[in-house]
């Protein structure tokens, strides 16, 4: 009965079934999944070819994606969603979950980003991890990451999406903790997983609520039926999905894991921050647009979370001296922009995805650039021990500069186009939110300029025996590609083939936003704020000398920002310490109170406190005795019930 219902839903969906080139859709996931399997089970035999296999698996997936993309471009807008059913996964009377893939313009955009940027990161890692004895395993994990992320964005059912969702969590756990012999890495990995699990509670509950409400977890049934469900349920589901998104996308209040995730090798950070993982939350919200459409309260919550995080991340970025942590703060902040946009509904969805894509380019670029710098500086991450590097790493500098200009939003670099749209949409929605978004742009300009000055300009503050050198070609070529994308990627997506907004329109819809003032005023204002941020940074770090050690006497605000705005401190006071006290007292109670009581009863039963030591003789007697007593008691009780 319910199986039929589910089928009916599928049947009425305007989704074509995979044929022709679309029959290859599953290969997108199969290549990297197979790569991971071979590399992780193959053992030492695959050590020498590990990096080649891993990179080729990712590349093969990208080639398939490109072919599918070309074919999709040739189709009419309404024919671009293609479904590939694979197999029945989980049949349980009433709940029928089957594994199927949905390739539509939204997932296509993600697939290209994941496989494209992902492959560049693979190539870069060949050089970066060259001297690591466990390089093969590293590539196995990278492939696992890519496969899981692809499953996440291609699934046509929330429960199948959840498998990819958690697979991403697993891959990040493995990669953040890749250098397991370091305690800090192991702790950071566990933290990332556990914090993500808190978000997963939201995911689990959301899927459960979907089943209770819709009787299915398939996109077709849930999103197709959302307009007939009460606002209360949609709000609940929307808020739960937001909780899930907060975990994966490191949004307030689940942001704390991201800043520690720097313990992994640097290409991992590029992968987590640019191509995979943190974008998953944005995908989830945009994909679930039909739910948020009927839940204005949940939408507002999304906007609030995004706004808070974008400001928080930017402030944290200002106070860090560790180059990777500055970039981590900037990721929080930029994802905050995307979440904010996603909270604006159809007016913002396309811009959220647009910014996600451009961010994917320039953030991968920046992280890999930072990795190249660390490579040159004996893994030094403290920017106070950098300085003047532009002469020693010219190629890296060039590409890094492109990423820098893109992230702060200088025209015509990629970030300008996408961030500008979000700020516009934010102002159209709410003046306060718009102001925060505008302010965020200024702070971004400040801390990124600070990073640029401390790293590439200013005087040399290197440690004594460092010999800075440019990275090998296998690392700089991906940087060049990403640098180019940071330059032209935004404009290209906006102006070619009808543009990204039109491309996504069949999936996410479109809505014109009305600004209370002309657009050019806002663009000009944004540029002014950015220039102000740059100028401020130049005055503090360009004109004046940079100290070799971080100043200790600083304002309260700086201290707070250095300590991640007390995110960890709050977690510790509010969750960890009470949790420890709770488990501690339960363990105590379990071994004392409860157990003693039970042992006491046992001793009584045997009629002898020495029972526990003289078992063999004691138990037969006690058994027989108590059996008799108990039986008599219950039989009497039963008989009396019957007689009465």
């Amino acid at each position, binding site marked *: 009965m319910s199986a039929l219902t589910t089928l009916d839903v599928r049947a009425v969906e305007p989704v074509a079934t995979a044929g022709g080139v679309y029959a290859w859709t599953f290969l997108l996931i199969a290549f990297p999944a197979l790569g991971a399997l071979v590399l992780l089970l193959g053992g030492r035999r695959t050590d020498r070819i590990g990096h080649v296999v891993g990179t080729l698996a990712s590349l093969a997936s990208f080639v398939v994606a490109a072919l599918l993309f070309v074919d999709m471009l040739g189709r009419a807008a309404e024919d671009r969603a293609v479904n590939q059913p694979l197999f029945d996964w989980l049949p349980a009377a009433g*709940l029928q979950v089957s594994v199927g893939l949905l390739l539509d313009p939204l997932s296509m955009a993600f697939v290209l980003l994941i496989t494209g940027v992902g492959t560049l990161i693979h190539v870069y890692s060949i050089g970066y991890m060259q001297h690591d004895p466990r390089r093969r395993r590293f590539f196995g994990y990278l492939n696992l990451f890519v496969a899981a992320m692809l499953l996440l964005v291609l699934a046509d059912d929330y429960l199948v999406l959840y*498998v990819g969702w958690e697979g991403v969590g697993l891959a990040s756990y493995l990669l953040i903790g890749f250098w397991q*012999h370091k305690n800090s890495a192991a702790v950071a990995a566990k933290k990332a997983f*556990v914090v993500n699990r808190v978000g997963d509670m939201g995911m*689990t509950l959301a899927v459960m609520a979907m089943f209770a409400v*819709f009787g299915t977890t398939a996109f077709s049934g849930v999103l197709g039926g959302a307009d007939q469900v009460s606002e209360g349920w949609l709000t609940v589901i929307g808020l739960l999905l937001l909780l899930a998104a907060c975990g994966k996308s490191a949004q307030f209040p689940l942001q704390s894991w991201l800043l520690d995730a720097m313990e992994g090798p640097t290409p991992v950070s590029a992968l987590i921050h640019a191509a995979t993982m943190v974008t998953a939350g944005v995908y989830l919200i945009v994909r679930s647009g039909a739910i948020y459409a009927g839940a204005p309260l949940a939408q507002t919550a999304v906007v609030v979370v995004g706004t808070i995080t974008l400001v928080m991340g930017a402030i944290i970025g200002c106070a860090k001296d560790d180059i990777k942590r500055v970039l981590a703060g900037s990721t929080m902040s930029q994802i905050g922009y995307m979440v904010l946009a996603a909270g604006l509904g159809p007016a913002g969805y396309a811009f959220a995805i647009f910014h996600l894509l451009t961010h994917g380019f320039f953030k991968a670029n920046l992280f890999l650039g930072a990795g190249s710098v660390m490579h040159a500086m004996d893994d030094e991450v403290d920017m106070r021990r950098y300085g003047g590097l532009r002469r020693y790493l010219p190629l890296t500098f060039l590409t890094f500069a492109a990423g820098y200009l893109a992230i702060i939003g200088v025209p015509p670099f990629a970030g300008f186009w996408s961030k500008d749209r979000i700020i516009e949409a934010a102002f159209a929605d709410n003046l306060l939110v718009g102001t925060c978004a505008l302010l965020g742009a200024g702070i971004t300009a400040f801390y990124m300029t600070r990073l640029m000055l401390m790293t590439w300009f200013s005087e040399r503050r290197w440690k004594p025996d460092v010999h800075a050198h440019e990275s090998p070609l296998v690392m700089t070529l991906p940087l060049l590609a990403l640098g180019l994308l940071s330059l032209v990627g935004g404009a290209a997506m906006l102006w070619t083939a009808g543009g990204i907004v039109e491309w996504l329109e069949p999936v996410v819809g479109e809505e014109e936003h009305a600004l209370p003032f002309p657009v050019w005023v806002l663009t000009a204002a944004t540029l002014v704020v950015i220039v102000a941020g740059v100028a401020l940074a130049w005055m503090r770090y360009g004109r004046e000398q940079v100290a070799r050690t971080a100043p200790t006497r600083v304002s309260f605000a700086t201290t707070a920002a250095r300590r991640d705005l007390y995110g960890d401190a709050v977690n510790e006071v509010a969750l960890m310490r009470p949790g420890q006290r709770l488990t501690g007292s339960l363990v105590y109670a379990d071994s004392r109170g409860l157990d003693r009581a039970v042992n006491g009863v046992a001793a009584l039963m045997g009629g002898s406190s020495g029972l526990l030591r003289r078992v063999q003789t004691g138990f037969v007697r006690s058994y027989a005795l108590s059996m008799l007593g108990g039986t008599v008691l219950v039989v009497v009780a039963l008989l009396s019930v019957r007689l009465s």
Partner: protein
Amino acid sequence: MSDFPWLSVLVAVPAVGALLVGLVPRRRGVLAKALGLAVSLLTLGLTIVVALLYRAGEGQFRLTEQYGWVERFGLYWSLGVDGVALALIALTAVVTPVVLVGGWDEAEPTGRSGKGFVFLVLVLEAMTLGAFAATDVLAFYILFEAMLVPMYLLIGSYGGPRRSYAAVKFLLYNLLGGLVMLAAVIGLYVQSATLRPDGGTFLLSELVGLPLSPQAQYWIFAGFMVAFAIKAPLWPFHSWLPDAAGEATPSTAAFLSGVMDKVGTFGMIHLCLPLFPQAARDLAPVIVTLAVVSILYGALVAIGQSDMIRLVAYASISHFGFIVLGIFALTSQGGAGATLYMVNHGLSTVALFLVVGFLVTRRGSRAIADFGGVQRPAPVLAGVLLVVALATLSLPGLATFVSEFLVLVGTFTRYPVAAVFAVLGIVLAAVYMLWMYQRVMTGPVRPTTEGMRDMRGREALALAPLLALLLVLGLYPKPLLDVINEGVAPTLSQVGVADPEPVQPATAEGASG
């Protein structure tokens, strides 16, 4: 062919095998172990035949057999399997050879014979299989009680320094439960006199639908339930398990928690639900509450453990909470999820006990603090522990996720608050598993863990089938779920409950509108 007593043979093979092992001279320990392994593999083969015949058959109970024993008192040897029983029989048949291989050398340090270990494990297998296949309440009861003896001997003979205390505690607890159950069995027999004027009956087929007054239902249900809750174990009857598992050898603990305890949860779904539908419906909220307490309590106490084996035992208590939760949610998803959970928990917990046991044997200590950095010298062992830990925390993609999700979703439709609390368990599970992994495997290598051996051939052989099943059943659980659904559906209709309807059913109109 169809009259061949397949189930009796299935039970008899390990029993006879145990006797044969008993005849092997004490000095020929290896022969005894090899013979035992061969018998357990033969049993596994027979189980596959039984599964195939089940698929070809019809009706709720299939491959039924019934032989008169003392017919005047309604005593029969009556066997039959439904989907639930078949799933658990398959679990038992898979786990027994794994435990034999995993515990191959465990008897050596105690100075006792490996022969005795094999003998007892095979006897346990026969009794467990019999309990799962029994369709007669008295036969089930006898086996339920009798299996305590070989387990008592396994814990008491081969365990750690406090093994006598642990074995006695195990026995006392379970005897207490068994005695309450005996009273309930007798009570049920007395009540069944309305069916047979000349006596009573123990046959499940006749007892289902027996009209009982509400009071009688409550009392007898409670009698069974107490025994099953102790065996399962459910909070607050759990405290024997950490002691028993902690003092037993790892493979004994694996069999105890992985297979034998499932007889308790099996009894709930096999006897408590169909025999006492009204009591099951009325008392379900109480049991659901206890189950949620078990989930959270077990997980929280697991986090605080400093002993690896006890940590695993408390994790099991948390997981048994999920199983009981699914059973008493009284929904198709909950029932199917709980049954699948029994199988998956069997696989994952046996693997976890064995891996942890391998570590404990190497280091000579159960304290987590005595480990650290083991992944350096033993990367394969570390990888396997991680996979098993992920299975224990129900990572999507592994078998355990499917069952845990089904339990949760099946609970949510009827008891949303209970489901919300139970979901907290997924975070706690991540904490206790990954924290243990972190403390044991990661960090700098310690002098004490420096030369630790990596996984050996025999150990890998024991774990490989479990890991493969956890992965395959995670990606494609359908064949197993189909069988389980067939078993759960009639049980729920006997209880007289229907699944809650979706608020907004996803009909064709809904999707197009």
